[in-house]
């Protein structure tokens, strides 16, 4: 499965590269580039879902994002999913980003897959897509157009040194009170620069190697809540809100793996003692 995903990503990047060469992302504040956006999405669809048909997601999947990004490095998005049709996973695609596939969530048996929130980088004026995959293998899509941020913000974010200093630190808290057997929303925070790196800059001679999160696995009492394949489109210090169903008090575990093969573990007692219970421990390759 891992190799399939990797090759998908590779195809993606190739398509993205072709596109940025052939048709640079249009930053103009007008909507008459609708045709460009549509053709870009068609190419992305082909690369990602190789010909599978995508159905209108009305009633199945809903994507919320601010109409204008307030901060290019941190745009909060919400994906709401049908409570009727069983959902297997969700893809989040930011069409005009250098690496358009921001996230692919695969839900496990402990999930309550009805609402997801995450924070993403948005480079330019772009369509954003959330694609829900139902248990019976159908794909449903919701679209949202996001205008780029104004002012001085940049998708690279500001200073990543704080994120590197305590890389892998995690926090988790529940929204609302714990009731055994009832669906619960949890907010997971992970300290990580999630940085795509830079080639040697010709002017400043500055170079930074990439370091970004590849996967996050969340589980409860040994059963998977979600597996996330992510990429550089996720913001620095990712924050993910997700649903799960704790049958009884127990432990929620999180494993984060990054592009330097570092592995970070967090385990949290549920219901825990209020906000930010938990202890994250890093293992694997030491931080750069």
């Amino acid at each position: 499965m891992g190799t399939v995903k990797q090759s998908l990503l590779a195809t993606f990047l190739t398509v993205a590269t072709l596109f940025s060469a052939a048709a640079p992302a249009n930053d103009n504040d007008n909507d008459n580039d609708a045709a460009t956006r549509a053709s870009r999405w068609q190419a992305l669809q082909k690369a990602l879902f190789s010909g599978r048909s995508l159905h209108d997601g009305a009633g199945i999947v809903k994507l919320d994002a601010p109409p204008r990004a307030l901060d290019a490095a941190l745009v909060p998005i919400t994906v709401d999913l049908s409570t009727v049709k069983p959902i297997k996973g969700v893809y989040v695609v930011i069409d005009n980003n250098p690496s358009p596939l921001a996230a692919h969530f695969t839900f496990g048996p402990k999930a309550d897959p009805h609402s997801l929130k995450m924070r993403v980088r948005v480079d330019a004026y772009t369509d954003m897509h959330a694609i829900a995959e139902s248990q019976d293998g159908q794909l449903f899509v919701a679209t949202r157009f996001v205008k780029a941020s104004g002012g001085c913000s940049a998708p690279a974010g500001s200073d990543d040194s704080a994120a590197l200093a305590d890389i892998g630190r995690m926090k988790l808290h529940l929204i609302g009170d714990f009731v055994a057997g009832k669906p619960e929303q949890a907010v997971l925070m992970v300290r990580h620069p999630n940085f795509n790196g830079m080639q040697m800059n010709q002017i400043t001679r500055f170079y930074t190697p990439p370091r970004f999160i590849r996967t996050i696995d969340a589980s409860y009492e040994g059963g998977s809540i979600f597996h996330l394949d992510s990429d550089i489109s996720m913001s620095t210090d990712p924050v993910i809100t997700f649903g799960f169903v704790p049958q009884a008090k127990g432990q929620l575990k999180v494993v984060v793996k990054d592009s330097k093969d570092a592995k970070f573990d967090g385990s949290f007692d549920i219901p825990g003692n209020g906000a930010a219970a938990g202890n994250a421990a890093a293992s694997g390759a030491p931080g750069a």
Partner: protein
Amino acid sequence: MFSFRAGAQKRMEETRAFATEEVAPGIHIRPGLDEDVTPRNEDGIANIGFIVGRDAVAVMDPGGSLIDGQRLRATIRRTTQLPIKYVVMSHVHPDHVFGAPAFQIDNPTFVGHAGLPRALAMRGDFYRKRLEDALGKERAGGLVAPTMLVQDHAEIDLGGRVLTLTAHGIAHTGCDLSVLDRNTGTLLAADLLFVRRVPSLDGNLRGWLKELAALQSVSARRAVPGHGPTSVHWPSGAKDLERYLGTLLRETKEAITKGMDLEAAVGTVAQSERSRWALFDDYNGHNVTQAFKELEWEQ
């Protein structure tokens, strides 16, 4: 040079001088507009200017675009023929430094915070593309790498006028540099100080409050803000900014404590400040986002 060709006329028009205010003897500042970049304003939205010593001139900042920088240079040349020996780049934001290429002809020392090269490398290309979209490639300007880096403090001598440069901890950005002219008691604070135009937080909120507190004990009688009037009394000119940042800190913390999420917080935090600042609606939500992502790790 006296051709009637449109191109030549345009070039002459582009390098016309602009009006500056002499906020203290030998310190000339062009007031920036309280706007975001447009083709009309050529990104001349920051307070930029120059300091004239006995032997040389220092520029701070070089301007928001190539055109803005060229016009600053033309303005300097209207005032003095002394060599432009230093170009101080106060931080990474395009409205302050994209005019730097206009001064390469003078072969000056380009001065920046030790963190500036990294910040330019991370963001420079993105800023350049966006500015080119707004102004056109030939007018946008670009990046110039600093040739003198300031770690803590440094001094530059313009002849009978020694400027003290201070590299600040993360505040407005991660690479803020201020200049103090002891001769006249003038602090050139750049974007560590916003007056009238709503500040933009792009570094660290607690850090900014800390640096702002430290700056207020600097012995200066006036300060030149990066945006707003060209000169304010010091330290009283810091009050509005301090109040805004304090409100942002307090109310963002409250929102987080209450369990409010970021999307809700951007619409509620610091709204009491709304009528006090130009461009509030364009930047406050961004500032709340920055504050939120910083402070949520504290609780």
